[in-house]
């Protein structure tokens, strides 16, 4: 019996599929030079799908549907909206990337990956979860290596594939052990089964560690972060932006749901492990970002560091903790997409990606420089941008849960972060081009960039000033886990 709740619970995914099919039908009939417009179709379609979902598919009481495969609740829904927004922004940013955006396949892969991510955020069953993770990952492997003529891109795709395949296999092994011990694959029944069963702590811990490998790869926490800099550097910039935001947030969606819902009894052991990992992740990410000369590698290490901050909210194990994770990810998605969008816009005109190449940018395009200011200060956690509130809320959750030492490590790290983020802004605002002839080297923006970047920068400021509605949504989402 297929009820309307079942339909509503996967309406966003159905709509994404429709967009994808539409692209498949329409694109071959368009002329070569018009195929870039698939980007408009994708972005517009995703925004339309968001609106339709917001109207017709809003969750009520949390409920497992489709035979216990999918959880229909605000946590999943909020993440789905975030992913689709990130997808729409990425589609716009792809449009003027000639090698990816002028063909339909890129957009199609993006949409396929989005379906997987949406299901990751909503899955309530180990089988569904694994399928979703693979659906999200495989298109991204292809997208990362999309530039066949570029060795670095090929390397990025291959590296991402190898790491991804390995870690997901390890995770799958963890899942199968879990099924063997608990006798169920339903996330919401696992807790009860593990409680009644006589699972020794060591065994449970081993299983958790195996699962953590897979998720740790997705969210790039140390020591599963090695792929991030190389893959970000090699893949097409908008794809790197998508990897560092939506893909990472999807990993966190799984992490929060799986660990909080399914392993409440084992919390003391896995929070201890995650707390140590969070501290190491923050520190390694920030310290390794210091010597970077390539802006995409810098952003890669910064995104590793940010994963560490988010982990503080996860291990707080409170409603505020989960709310802070959701809020942080929302702010982070907007900010990092903005940062990668700017990098894309800049390198499209100049073809350069080193930090030193940004010298004189405030004279070449003052507006773009201001956006970069907003993005990097938000990453550094400065008001009035989203990053500040997000950081304060995460730290507040950490302190509430008694992790003062972890928060202290967090703040020391954020000071290191301020140093290298400001260092980039120094090139943008202070240094000049070798011949001081910035007027002759403007950095023009095409309409898709203007729209995407303006929306993102507006969002970054909005989430940092009028944070009440965002926090209420995050809180509503968090409520579903407790």
């Amino acid at each position, binding site marked *: 019996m297929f009820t309307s709740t079942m339909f509503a619970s996967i309406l966003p995914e159905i709509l994404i599929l429709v967009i994808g099919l539409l692209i498949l039908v329409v694109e071959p009939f368009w002329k070569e030079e018009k195929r870039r417009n698939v980007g408009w179709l994708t972005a517009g379609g995703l925004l339309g799908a968001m609106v339709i979902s917001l109207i017709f598919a809003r969750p009520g009481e949390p409920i497992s549907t489709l035979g216990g495969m999918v959880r229909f609740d605000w946590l999943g829904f909020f993440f789905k909206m975030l992913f689709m927004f990130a997808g729409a922004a990425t589609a716009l940013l792809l449009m003027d990337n000639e090698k990816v955006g002028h063909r339909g396949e890129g957009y199609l892969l993006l949409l396929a990956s989005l379906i997987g991510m949406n299901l990751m955020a909503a899955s309530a069953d180990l089988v569904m979860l694994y399928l979703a993770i693979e659906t999200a990952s495989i298109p991204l492997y292809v997208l990362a290596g999309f530039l066949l003529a570029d060795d670095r891109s090929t390397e990025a795709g291959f590296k991402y594939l190898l790491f991804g395949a390995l870690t997901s296999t390890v995770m799958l092994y963890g899942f199968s052990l879990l099924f063997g011990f608990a006798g169920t694959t339903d996330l919401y029944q696992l807790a009860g089964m593990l409680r009644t069963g006589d699972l020794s702590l060591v065994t449970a811990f081993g299983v958790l560690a195996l699962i953590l490998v897979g998720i740790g790869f997705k969210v790039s926490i140390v020591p599963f972060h090695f792929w991030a800099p190389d893959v970000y550097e090699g893949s097409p910039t908008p794809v790197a932006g998508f990897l560092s935001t939506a893909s990472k947030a999807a990993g966190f969606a799984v992490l929060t749901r799986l660990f909080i819902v399914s392993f409440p009894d084992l919390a003391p052991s896995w929070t201890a492990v995650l707390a140590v990992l969070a501290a190491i992740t923050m520190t390694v990410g920030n310290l390794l970002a210091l010597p970077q000369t390539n802006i995409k590698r810098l952003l890669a290490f910064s995104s590793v560091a940010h994963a560490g901050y988010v982990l503080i909210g996860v291990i707080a194990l409170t409603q505020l903790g989960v709310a802070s994770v959701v809020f942080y990810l929302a702010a982070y998605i907007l900010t990092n997409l903005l940062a990668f969008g700017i990098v894309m816009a800049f390198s499209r005109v100049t073809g350069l990606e080193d930090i030193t190449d940004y010298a004189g940018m405030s004279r070449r395009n003052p507006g773009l420089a201001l956006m970069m200011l907003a993005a990097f200060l938000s990453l550094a956690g400065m*008001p009035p941008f989203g990053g500040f509130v997000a950081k*304060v809320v995460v730290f507040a959750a950490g302190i509430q849960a008694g992790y003062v030492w972890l928060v202290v490590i967090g*703040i020391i790290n954020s000071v290191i972060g301020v140093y290298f983020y400001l260092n980039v802004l*120094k090139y943008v*605002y202070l240094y000049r081009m070798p011949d001081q002839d910035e007027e002759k080297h403007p950095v023009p923006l095409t309409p898709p960039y203007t729209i995407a970047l303006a929306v993102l920068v507006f969002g970054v400021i909005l989430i940092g000033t009028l944070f009440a509605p965002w926090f*209420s949504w995050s*809180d509503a989402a968090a409520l579903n886990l407790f």
Partner: protein
Amino acid sequence: MNFPFLSVITFTPLVAALLILLLPAQRKNEARAVALGAAVIALLLSFCVYFNYDQAAGGYQFIEKYNWLPALGISLYFGVDGMSTPLVLLTGVVMFTGVLISWGDDDKRVMAGIQDRPREFFAFLFILAWGVFGVFVSLDLFMLFFFYEIAVFPMYLLIAIWGWVVTREYAAMKLTLYLFLGSVISLVGVLIMYWVQYQNTGVLSFDMLEMEKAGFSQTFQNIWFLPVFLGFAVLGGIWPFHNWSPDGHVAAPTAVSMFHAGVLMKLGAFAALRVGIMLLPQGAVTWKWLIMFFAAVAVVYGAYIAFVQTDFKYMVGFSSVSHMGLVMLGFSTLNREGLLGSGLQMFSHGVMTALFFAVVGMIYDRAHTRQIPELGGMNKVMSFAAIGFIIGGLVSMGMPGFSGFVAEFPIFLGVWREQWLVAVISSISIVITAAYIMRNIRQVFFSDLPEKLDGHLTDVTVLDKVAITTLCLFMILIGLFPGFMVPMVETGVENILRLLGGT
């Protein structure tokens, strides 16, 4: 009060900054005009607040409260008391004069003011002013913190982009990291206070007036007072964390030095008072001797280092450390006289040091050197600036008849009541200050004009004169008529003493 004075004052700079950013880059004069307009509005409104503050009633007035994030107890909660009202006025004055000083001149006869990208300069300066106003009027701890951080980061850009080429990158980064580290350490303390309050009272709120009643235990206060107080006091230039301050002052462009020394350092002192002493009063009692020691060292050491400087701007920078040490010294007494003196000193030093930096900036723009031995005879070309500097110097020395005396005398009185020895030692600074101020006035303004400079110098502009006059008027007004400000600050001091429980 129906008119929302405080929120209008606070958000005027922000609106102005956005308007300026919307202007096209080449419309430099329009950017300056918008900046001046906003500064005048903010100044007039802060006058309104100052004169409409009911001193008989005391307490927090002009209260506005808007729920911002009820789930976490964050609200946009504005109000001023006798301590913060003068500081709001101070910010208005420094903002106004700062804009006048940085006006700039597009045909480049004089390299004064800001010629390079004035649009961005004024926008960042006003975002800074937004944060400063916000800190002074916020009664919500989260918002105080929010504005505090806003006041910190534009400094980096302002110094790094428009500062003195030689040291600006180093100084700007050093300043930002120092201040950010201090503020995040305070943040940890603040968040812990927030949760302990929740445990004690069951109220989830960042409202500082509620937090005053949270009943933090003695042990808790002893542990957390020092991180919170010192974290903020870093921005107040407290020894031994003052090192960023002279470097920052020297590297900053004139208007930013004025803002930095005149207002921002007060921001640190004020936040240390507001959050450290007023929310954790018992902790303050425990640690007052340490604070007093730090402050006394800052007072004497700062003055001595200022004495040996040959760079004019470094001299003023270290004199700021010395004078801000006096503010902290007053705080550490925790008695009526000391706190009153600190409140007055914050205003007096703000105006005085803004004037100092303005004059130093004017001289440097014309003579292109700040080495005191290379300067001389400035009185012949810019007598107006000379008069301004002399008045500032007299304030700095604590000469009766000027605001410095009104402020410093109660501080020493208060210190004497606590420990006479500290008062004696720190009063040495007055002698040293007098020595270096007199020496420099003689050398820079009254000795012979060096041949190298002869004929190259021009008088200060009309706008500069307006700025100097405004600043001087306040110093003389308070000196001759202390009733202008003393009763106001007293109402604020009453409030602090109440929290300290009559000590």
